[in-house]
């Protein structure tokens, strides 16, 4: 269980950094990301991972 929690935290960190990178790329070069990839997928995964992380920390 502890391993899964740690993996989830790593996934959360990676998704957060990736989403920020995609956001900056899209902001500076309009269409760079959005024309080829739906970054909402990363955002949804980030939220789910974040919720799981928050829940495990609170427990």
């Amino acid at each position, binding site marked *: 269980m502890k*391993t899964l929690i*740690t993996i989830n935290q790593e*996934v959360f960190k990676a998704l957060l950094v990736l989403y920020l990178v995609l956001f900056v790329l899209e902001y500076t070069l309009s*269409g760079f990301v959005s024309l*080829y990839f739906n970054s909402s997928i990363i955002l949804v995964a980030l939220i789910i991972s974040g919720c799981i992380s928050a829940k495990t920390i609170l427990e």
Partner: protein
Amino acid sequence: MTQIIKSTRIILLILAGLLILYLIWQNFSPIGSQTIIFDLKDNKFISKLNPDARITEPECNESLCTQTIFGDPVYFDLLLARNFKSLNIELTYQSEESIDVRLGMQVKEGWNYMIKNKSSEVESNGSKTASYSFPLSSAWKNNRHINFLISIPELQSSDKKVIIRSLRFDLQR
């Protein structure tokens, strides 16, 4: 435990790297082509045909949409995701009689268009597919958008109508 964390980090790094590389390739690839099929539904690369005073709203029957042009000309924008050298457009339309359909690409600011007649036409199942070629080096790009027109001069002096079925864009490096 540390081995699992290390492996997870490496896998995530590879996945993120692959996504970034895919985006860089799509945006800056020095080779290749892009094909855009505009079937009159919402499209990221092609704007809707306008103005509304010269063309009907899309009428969709199952998956097939049509729009009827009754005024001349109608316009649309093409969004260029990256640089291309040439463009071939295939316009699929229906008309009751033989009618001259031309396509124009904006080459300067204002009403300056390179008007082209169809280079070839194929007829099948009651629809005609006309081809047009444009050199994109001459295009006037406004924030990566190129404006095009569909010109059917005969519509100005008659009650003729042209039903547009689809547009296919073949972009080449």
